[in-house]
Every structure is written in C-alpha cells, then in structure tokens.
C-alpha cells in the first residue's frame, strides 16, 4: 500500500492520467461547441473511431505521422458532418442518429482494418509522436513530468483549451453560438445564420473528435484495433456535462476520469485484493457519481437536440 504514496509512483501515475485524459478532453472540447449550438451529438464514439482508423490507415500507408493526423481529422469531420446533415438539414432525431453512427463506425472500421491488413502477415504498426520535454517547466516536481513532458498533440490541446475558453466566454462569436443553442429563432431574427453556425460547430466537433481518435493511435498505441475507443466517447459526453460545457472545467473533468481509468490499472498492478471486475467498473462508477453530483447545478441549452425549422408556424 505504501507504494502509492512515493513521489515516483505519484509522478508516473499523474503522467499516465494526463495521457489517458487527452482523448477525452479532445472529444469533449468538440462536443462543447456542438452542444452550445444546440446539436446533441451522441456519436462521439463514431467520430473517435473514424479519426483513429483514418489516422492509422493514412500514417501506415504514407509513413508520415502528420499526414496521419490530417487523415484522422478528415475522418472525424466526415462522420460528424453526416450527423450534422441529418440533424440540421433533415431535422431528424439527433440521439438516434448518433447511436446509429456509433454502431455503424464500429462495424465499418473493423471491416476496413481487415482489408488493410489482409495482405500483411505481421500485425502492422506505426510510429508514435515522440515526447518533447519543455525546458524548465518539465523539471517541476510532481506535475512537471505529467504536464510538460508530453507529445506535441498534448501541447496543441492546451492551446485549444485556452482558445476555446476565451472564444466561448468572452467573444461576440461565442455569444452567437450560445444564442443559436438557446433560442435559434432569436438568433435568426438578429441575422445570425443559424444553420451555418450549427454546421460550423459540428465541423469543429468532428475535427476535434478525429484528433481524439488520432491521439490514441499516433501518440498512445501505434496500432488500430477493433473497438479501440471502448466507450470513451460516452465518457466524453459525461465529461461535457460534468464540466458544465466550459472548456477549462471540462479539461479538469477529463483529468479526473483519466485518473480513474489509470487507477484501475495501477491498483491491479499493485495486486490490491479487489476483484478485477470492480476495478473495471471504476471509471463508469465515477461517471455515474459525477452525473448525480451535477443534478440541478446547470441547465442545458434551451433548444439542445431540437431541430430548428425556420418556416414552421
């Protein structure tokens, strides 16, 4: 037990927690934009899987990590725009569409993986983004290693979190986005282009979701496996709610969930005498507790999940 409290253990635990939190943070950051604009996209899992598979496929065939990242972004974007088309243009049920995409992507990504690796006896692998220690900052005890000795995608995320926070809370553009999610008719009457704003928000969601999946392949594992996201898209949705749709809060929430997931592995490794099934439950248990804790503390955008039809009477 006392192993838990050594500095070395905590440092490596934190480092792993940050690393695990990154895909959740990327995906939830995207979902914040989407939900602010009134589109409830449950298909984060689909965005991530598309991003993961495309980044792997492109990186594997081209040999370039950056091309892989681009591929991941495009993959996530494509899936998310399909969701946006169905929910904005066709005004269909956003939840059902999201679930359908999740299931569809699970199948099709596994299928394409088979095609991709069918003529390759060895299991294909790609390189991963190397760690870049930021001089000075990475030497801070305990947190330096975790926060500032990471790969480039982590630093990009830091920038995105900061930018999103300013953009959503302190700019006219953020207000317009909020107006579209709260009261699209009001937004329309002051000349905000409701549909365009929603498509843009969906595009941001798709690209960030794609990066989330790309991170798992290009920074964590170097491979794509069937259902490799394993429910993280759903946890990212919980992160959005727990983070009250604010980028910095959501990033911290992602860290909490990341820590819970790492704890599961660490405790198993330490041989703590709890059934493995209980450990596996931990992240989801925390999700439930977190959701219970946020009851009544926030309200959803007024027209979240409701399609806007301008000509309706």
């Amino acid at each position, binding site marked *: 037990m006392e192993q838990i409290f050594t500095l070395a253990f905590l440092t490596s635990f934190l480092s792993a927690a940050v690393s695990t939190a990154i895909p959740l943070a990327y995906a939830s950051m995207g979902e914040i934009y989407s939900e602010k604009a009134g589109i409830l996209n449950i298909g984060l899992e689909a965005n991530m899987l598309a991003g993961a598979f495309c980044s792997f496929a492109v990186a594997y065939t081209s040999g370039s990590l950056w091309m892989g990242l681009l591929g991941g972004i495009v993959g996530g974007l494509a899936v998310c725009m399909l969701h946006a088309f169905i929910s904005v243009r066709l005004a269909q049920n956003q939840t059902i569409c999201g679930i359908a995409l999740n299931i569809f992507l699970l199948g099709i990504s596994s299928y394409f993986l088979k095609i991709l690796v069918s003529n390759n006896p060895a299991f294909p692998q790609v390189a991963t983004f190397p760690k870049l220690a930021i001089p000075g900052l990475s030497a801070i005890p305990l947190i330096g290693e975790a926060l500032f000795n990471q790969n480039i995608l982590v630093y990009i995320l830091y920038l995105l979190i900061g930018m999103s926070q300013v953009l959503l809370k302190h700019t*006219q*553009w953020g207000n*317009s986005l909020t*107006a579209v999610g*709260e009261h699209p008719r*009001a937004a*329309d*009457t002051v000349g905000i*282009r409701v549909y365009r704003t929603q498509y843009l928000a969906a595009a941001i969601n798709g690209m960030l979701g794609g990066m989330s999946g790309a991170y798992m392949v290009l920074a964590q594992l170097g491979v794509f496996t069937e259902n490799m996201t394993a429910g993280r898209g759903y946890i990212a949705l919980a992160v959005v709610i727990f983070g009250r749709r604010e980028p910095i809060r959501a990033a911290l929430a992602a860290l909490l969930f990341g820590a819970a997931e790492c704890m599961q592995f660490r405790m198993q490794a330490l041989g703590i005498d709890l059934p493995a099934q209980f450990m596996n439950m931990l992240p989801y248990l925390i999700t439930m507790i977190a959701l219970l804790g946020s009851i009544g503390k926030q*309200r959803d955008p007024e027209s979240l999940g409701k399609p806007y039809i301008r000509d309706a009477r």
Partner: protein
Amino acid sequence: MKGIVKAFPGVIANNHVNLSVKAGEIHALLGENGAGKTTLMNILYGLYQADSGSVYWKGEKVHFHSPLDAIAAGIGMVHQHFTLIPTMTVLQNIILGLKEKGYPFIKITEITESIQALAKRYGLAVDVKKRVCELSVGEQQRVEILKALYRGAELLVLDEPTAVLTPQETCEFFEVLRRLKSEGHAVILITHRMAEIMAISDRVTILRDGSDLAVMNTQDTDPASLAKLMIGSELPERPVIEPHKGDAAPLLELKDIVVKKERISRLAISLQVYPGEIVGIAGVDGNGQKELAEVICGILSASQGTIQYDGQDITKATVYQRFRRGIAYISDDRHHDGLVLDMNLRQNLMLRKYKLSPYTKHGCLNRNKMDEFSSSCIGKYQIKPPSPGIKMRLLSGGNQQKAILAREISEEAKLIVACQPTRGLDIGATMQVRSILAEQRNRGAGILLISADLDEILSLSDRIAVLFRGQLMGVLDNGAELKTETIGSMMGGRPLAEGETTYA
C-alpha cells in the same frame, strides 16, 4: 407591400395583401387571429418568403432573403413572443449577432455608453448589466425595442405589444411610441384591441381571412365599425350575468396554500370560491396563475396549507379523485396540457370518462356509447367539422377549445377552473366561450376564471382577485364603477390598503 401571397399547407395565410406605411406614422394592422397579420410581417422581415407579390422600400423594389437583409434596410421587428436569450445580459442581447468595433471581442464600456444614450433619447430606461431573465415583461419589451433601434431601424414592427403589459405599462409604452414617431420613425402596430388603435394610431389597415379589406384614417372611424369590418358581422352580444344568488357555504377554500417549484415559492395564497359565482384572477402572465390552477386540480401538490372543497379536505386527493368530485379544468395550453393533438376528436372528448360505465364495461371500451357521447358534445357545442374521427390537430383553435369545454363541463361539474379560456380565439369563439361560462355560473357552478385579459375579467366576474408574484394583492367586488387604475397598480405589485376605496 403589394399583392403578397403566402400559403401554408392547408391554408392561404395571405391572399394578395397590400399594405403601405408612410414615414413618421403609426400604422395599425387590425385583424382577428389567423387573419394573416403576423405572416405578412414575417414576410416583410425576411423570415418567410412570399409565394408571390413584392415589397417596396423607399420606392424601390426589394427582396429580403433573411432578417439580415431587412435589418440592413432599416426594418426592426419585435415579435409577440420575445426573441431574447434569457441567460444573457441585456447588453449581450442588444448587440447579438452584430460585428461591432473590436470584433470578435466586446468593448463593454463603449457599447454601454451608446446604448444608454439611445435609451435616454427614447425614454427606454433599462439596466444593461442585468440578465434578461431577471427583467419584468415590460422591461424585456424595452430591450427588444432598443435592440431594433440599436440596429438603426427606421420602421419598427410591433406584434401584439400590449398583450403582456399592465394598463400602466401600456401607457408608458404609448409614450415611447409617440417619442419614436416624433423622431421620424414609422411604426406598424399589430393588434386586435380597438381602444389602442383609437388611442395611438394614425391610420389602420384591416385584414380578414388573409386579405386586406380597408385602409382608413383612424380619426375617420370608430371602434364599432372597425370591429364590424374585422369580424365581418355584428359583434355578438355580451353574456348576461344574473345577480349573484348569495351566501351559501364556500365551495372551494384555499387556506394558506404554498406551492414551491425549484425551491422557490411560486404561490402563497388563501382564497374562497362560492357556488354560483365567478372569481376572476387578474394579473400579468406568469405571476402564479398556472400554479394556482394546477394546485386546485391536483397536478401540483401544495407544500403547506389545506384545500377544502364541498365540505371535505381534498389537499391529498389525486387529479382523478378531484375530477370525480366535480372539479373541471380548462388548461391555458390547449396543445400541451389540454388535448392530445394526434388523437382524434372522439378520443379527446373521452379522455376524462373512458374508464367509467357505460363507456367501459369489463375492461372493454364501448364504441357505441362513446360515439353517442361525442355526437352529443359536437351538437351541443357546435364543434366543426362535426366528425368524431378527425385528428385533433386539424381543428381550428376555437373548435379545439370548444372540445375541451365539452369534455370538462357537464352537469356534474361543480367547480370550473378556467385558465385563459379564450386565449388565441377570435372574437366569435371568445364570446361563445364566455357565454358558456356565464351559463354554468347561473346554473350554480363556482368558477375560477384566470385571465390575462382584464376586459374579460371585468365583464364576467363577480369578484376579482389580483395576483402578483404568487401573492394576492387584494380581492375586490366587481361593479361598473370599479377603477381599472386600482387593478392596474395591484397587477404591478401594490397591495390593496386597508379601507381603501376602489370605486370612482
């Protein structure tokens, strides 16, 4: 606007409508619900596209593809249901969607100053830092007008602006309109209230069934002839109210009832209703009226206090038990609470009774008995079209309301809670609903009439109670000499003082 045509599935909302408005005039657009006023204005504002016809602005033919074009041309619109974001501040709402200097960032001090200058010029005092959800309805309306003016509106379209205001607020609002006019703005005022047209407008255009019937100078006309033009026939007579029969025991007695929603007290009230009287509940919408109706019908439960009804304590009784004891409820929201729009007329008429014999026997519905009952309802209340199998959604508002009345009101109804029973109905249907209520009262039922329309309360009630932020400001005996100003100031939150005279 010339020859505007706009059709929606099943209705022609505008049929070759013409409308012309001069600079610096207040032009009233008069018509019943469904006459096509709002549709016409939405076309002018670019929200709807006309099927044919054209819009001329300052002599030139224009086509507005979206509100953005209309705003750029100098047209502002205040919708009947405000288009403000409740969670945002007044300032954020006013500049919403604009690309001001410093975009995308917001220069709060500079913008505050220019808004305040504008507000001062037109007498539209409002605190720009407050969130819209903290404002009264009158203040929200001022924000809406400021929002349009801030965008440089020369023509202001106001859709039913006074429907939500107290009499005092209406007076203040008219002052603002006069100020706008003197500054050279044109105003289109949509309304169906004659008194307002006579008081404020220069010219009036009358719409009926989607066509424009007449344009006239306000001073050349009078309310009676306007009304005749608007509804196309003589105004129906007012219902007759027989003198109140007097002093039985109270039918309904609310004792220190407190209703809490989201931990905030929405209602704290004591009130009696006697058999054979109409108690009118006056007050601006959203001051606890809905909660009052729902706590009596058992939909909400009171956190404190007791409800006595017909000599028994019904505080804990369920909705169904209360209905069986003769409490009828006419909900203010036909589409949401009152009816199931996707079921047919027969099913809607049976909603309260389907469990009872003879409509259900041994757990099976008796179609013949149900048909009999629906046909008698349709005949008695003249519901059109008279087909029990028609989808509720396809009926007009007036006929939907009649269906609710038919279902709720029967010989067994001892207490009728009527919540905004004539909201959204045209004058003909309104008169019919009012005389049904008067009939029930004369028969001996106690009626709680909740209405935001003060005229309705004044013309029907025996006693008038004024509700403000969930509390009674006082209960008055209705009479011809009752001062509307007194009720107005009570609606604005001034309680009735001890021994105060309320008569002129």
